[in-house]
């Protein structure tokens, strides 16, 4: 096992660094309360093409870390580079696509028009918008529903549209904030399969926030385990469960092994409080 971990980390280290965090702090100071340290001394390198899960209980700062990368909030201290640039610059360059907890589709736009939204904002030509949006709907297997409206789709389908929208402008990074948290178990497992297929086809770097252990183990190439008060990284685990992963993967001994390791780490962190 050690050997495979070695080769895995060597091979990923050879790839360019996409996200580099050094001594990252984020402190919230609500006016009526004492300061809350959402992130404390976070150091993390993420390489191109990796599938990284950030996992931990609520308050561990996993979403905050994602929002820092997305430049939706700013760090209190420390360095963060996205594609070798400041997160602000990376956002202006449209380096990442974001998928939120809710599908956040626009009710007044058809499925196709929703996927075209970022392309419109970024000034793509009508022809490019049509081509890309149709391609993306094909990728998430929703071509038949191009002219439907969001409220006519199930929750899982809506979230797939939201993924298509995030990928439409071909960003190099996909940021996902508990995207399947609101879905039932079956839909969730299907969505996981779908996401892996998209990741393997596009080679995009995925950073995926979740609090489901099995989801993290099933999806990611590395798992970043975090703990709360103050929010910090407890450990980064290389996940050697072989790709391509399928429904049977969840029944493999290696899968259980990893799930157990992550669960132990989360429990230790919890008991240390």
């Amino acid at each position, binding site marked *: 096992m050690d050997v495979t971990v070695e080769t895995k980390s060597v091979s990923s280290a050879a790839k360019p660094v996409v996200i580099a965090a050094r001594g990252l702090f984020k402190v919230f100071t609500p006016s009526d309360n004492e300061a809350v340290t959402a992130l404390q001394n976070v150091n993390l390198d993420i390489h191109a093409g990796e599938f990284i899960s950030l996992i931990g209980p609520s308050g561990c700062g996993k979403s905050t870390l994602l929002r820092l990368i997305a430049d*939706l909030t700013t760090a209190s201290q420390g360095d963060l580079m996205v594609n070798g640039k400041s997160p602000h610059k990376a*956002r202006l360059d449209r380096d990442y696509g974001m998928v939120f907890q809710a599908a956040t589709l626009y009710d*007044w736009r058809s499925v196709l028009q929703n996927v075209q*939204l*970022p392309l419109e904002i970024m000034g793509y030509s009508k022809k490019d918008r049509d081509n890309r949006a149709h391609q993306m709907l094909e990728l998430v297997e929703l071509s*038949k529903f191009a002219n439907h409206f969001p*409220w*006519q789709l*199930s929750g899982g389908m809506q979230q797939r549209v939201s993924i298509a929208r995030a990928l439409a402008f071909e960003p190099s990074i996909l940021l996902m904030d508990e995207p399947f948290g609101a879905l039932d178990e079956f839909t969730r497992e299907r969505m996981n399969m779908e996401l892996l297929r998209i990741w393997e086809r596009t080679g995009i770097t995925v950073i995926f926030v979740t609090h489901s252990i099995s989801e993290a183990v099933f999806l990611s190439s590395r798992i970043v385990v975090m703990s709360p008060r103050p929010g910090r990284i407890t450990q980064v685990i290389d996940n050697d469960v072989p790709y391509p992963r399928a429904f049977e993967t969840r029944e493999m001994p290696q899968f259980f092994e990893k799930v157990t390791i992550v669960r132990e780490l989360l429990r230790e962190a919890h008991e240390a409080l």
Partner: protein
Amino acid sequence: MAQGTLDFSPPKTTWIDQVRYYMPTILIAIIVLGLWELLVWMFNIQQFLLPKPSAIIIEVVRETYLATSGESILFQAAGATAWSAVGGFVVGSTLGILVALMTARWTIVSEALLPLAIAANSVPIIAFAPIMNNWFGLTNPASKIAIVSIIVFFPVMINTVRGLTLVDPMQLELMRSYAAKPFKILFALRIPNALPFVFSALRVTSSLSVIGAVVGEFFGGPRATLGVLITQEASGFNFARAWAAISMAALIGISFYLLVLLAERRLMPWHSSLRESA
């Protein structure tokens, strides 16, 4: 849910379904009118207290006949009042929406203006009608258009500002993640988000504008307006004619409301209130 097997088209409605749907309402209306007729006849109520529905209907039919040769004052009055109401509605709601768009662009202005607008909205604006009559002249339709505009302006402006500012924070973050310009956020997100708010104000003010026009005319105006006609015929003891004028005002109010409703369905096919069929 199996993909591709879902049928989202609304269930087919035939005219028989439509009739079945509205039948109870129509029946109740007929029963109420019948009871009204019966009670007036049974208790021998004087026509200046309450005329029979049949007398009112005969009056309207007679005026309709006159209208074919252009001699019906009732229909002239209805036309004039309808134009005052529509004119004021268009001016007031356009101004309301424009001011709201401007204040939403500069948040400080909207924060300063909104409390004032809400205060102004709770004032019985119709009390200003005599003032408007003085300003613009009693017989000038502009005086009625002005009072209707002011009545319409405040609810439309307040609701539009709400619709432009009450945007789901996650939707705004999505726009931020695209590094979208404020201008683009306004057109792609804030304005469509405001539409349901705007239309709920327009629905209310469509009825208010007819009330505004008629009450404005109570304080004086050209003879061929519903407000003036109602007061004149009532003081001349022609109650069937007064009631005929009241029915015309009601008819204008209802058609105006339905027109706004129709426009809403056309412009916002996505809105939740229209989804029951799915």
